[in-house]
C-alpha cells in the first residue's frame, strides 16, 4: 500500500509553528526534539508532517478507514539522510510504513509504503495541472487500457479508486497537491 505528500515550501507553515501549543498537538516529544536539533527546524518540521501525511494516506487506504485527525498516533523517525533521499519510518499501532523523501528546490515530497521494496513510479509537477488526469494517462500507458475508459471515484471514506468504466480496479495509488506542486504515485505491483 502506498501514500504520498507534497509540500510547497513557498507557502509559509502555520504562524504557530514554533509554539508548544501547536507542536504538542501534532508532534510527539521525540519528534519535536529531532526537529529542533536539526539544522533547519522549519524545514524538518514540514518534512515530519509530510511523513505523517503520506503514512496516513497509505494506512487509511490499506484498511479503508474513516477519516480521522490523529497525527500523534503516527510516530516518525528518520533512518538515513543523503542529498538524494531521506529514508525513515512511521509507526502506527503495530504497523510500520517505510518512507522515502526528497527536499528539493522549493518542495518536500514524501512517499510511504507498507513494505520496504515496493515497486512504484511517481511523477511530480511544479505547475498547475490536473494530476488525476496525469495519473489516468500514466496508468493507461502501463496497463494498455484506453484512458477514455478510466476514471477515479472516491468511496464513502473519501479514498480515491481507479475504475475501468464501472469496474473498480485493485490498483494502489496516491495523489497529493499543495500550492503550485502536485504529484501522483502509482504502484506497479499489488500488495
Amino acid at each position, binding site marked *: 500500500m502506498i501514500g504520498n505528500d507534497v509540500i510547497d515550501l513557498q507557502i509559509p507553515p502555520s504562524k504557530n509553528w514554533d509554539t508548544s501549543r501547536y507542536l504538542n498537538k*501534532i508532534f510527539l516529544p521525540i519528534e519535536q526534539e529531532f526537529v529542533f536539533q536539526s539544522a533547519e527546524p522549519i524545514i524538518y518540521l*514540514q518534512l515530519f508532517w509530510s511523513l505523517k501525511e503520506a503514512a496516513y494516506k497509505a494506512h487509511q487506504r490499506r484498511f479503508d478507514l474513516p*477519516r480521522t*485527525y*490523529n497525527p*500523534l498516533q503516527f510516530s516518525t523517525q528518520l533512518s538515513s539522510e543523503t542529498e538524494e533521499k531521506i529514508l525513515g519510518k512511521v509507526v502506527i499501532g503495530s504497523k510500520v510504513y517505510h518512507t522515502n523523501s526528497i527536499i528539493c528546490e522549493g518542495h518536500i515530497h514524501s512517499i510511504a509504503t507498507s513494505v520496504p521494496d515496493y515497486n512504484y513510479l511517481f511523477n511530480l509537477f511544479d505547475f498547475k495541472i490536473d494530476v488525476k488526469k496525469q495519473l489516468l494517462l500514466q496508468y493507461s500507458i502501463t496497463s494498455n487500457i484506453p484512458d477514455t475508459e478510466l476514471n477515479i471515484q472516491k468511496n464513502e471514506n473519501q479514498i480515491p479508486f481507479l475504475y475501468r468504466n464501472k469496474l473498480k480496479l485493485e490498483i494502489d495509488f496516491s495523489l497529493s497537491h499543495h500550492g503550485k506542486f502536485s504529484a501522483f504515485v502509482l504502484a506497479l505491483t499489488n500488495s
Partner: protein
Amino acid sequence: MTEIAILEKIKKIVTPYVQRKEGLEDFNDSTDFISDLKINSANLVDVILDVEDEFNIEIDNTSMDGMLTAGDAKRIILNKLDS
C-alpha cells in the same frame, strides 16, 4: 450562546485558512473542512488553536480526532462549554 452564533464564529475562524472560498457560501453543519473548504491538513491545528482561544476551552486529542466538519466542531464546543 446559540448554535447559530457558534457556527458563525467557527466560520469566521476558518475563513483565513480556506482555499476554496465557494465552500463558505453555504456554511452549515455538514461543511467539511478538508473536502469542502480545502483547508490544508497542517492548518487544521491552527483552526483548533483559534477555537480554543475564541471559546476559552481546551480541545483534547480525542476530540481533535473527530473534528472534520463545522458540525463536529460545534458539538465539541457545546460539550466543552457545558462541562
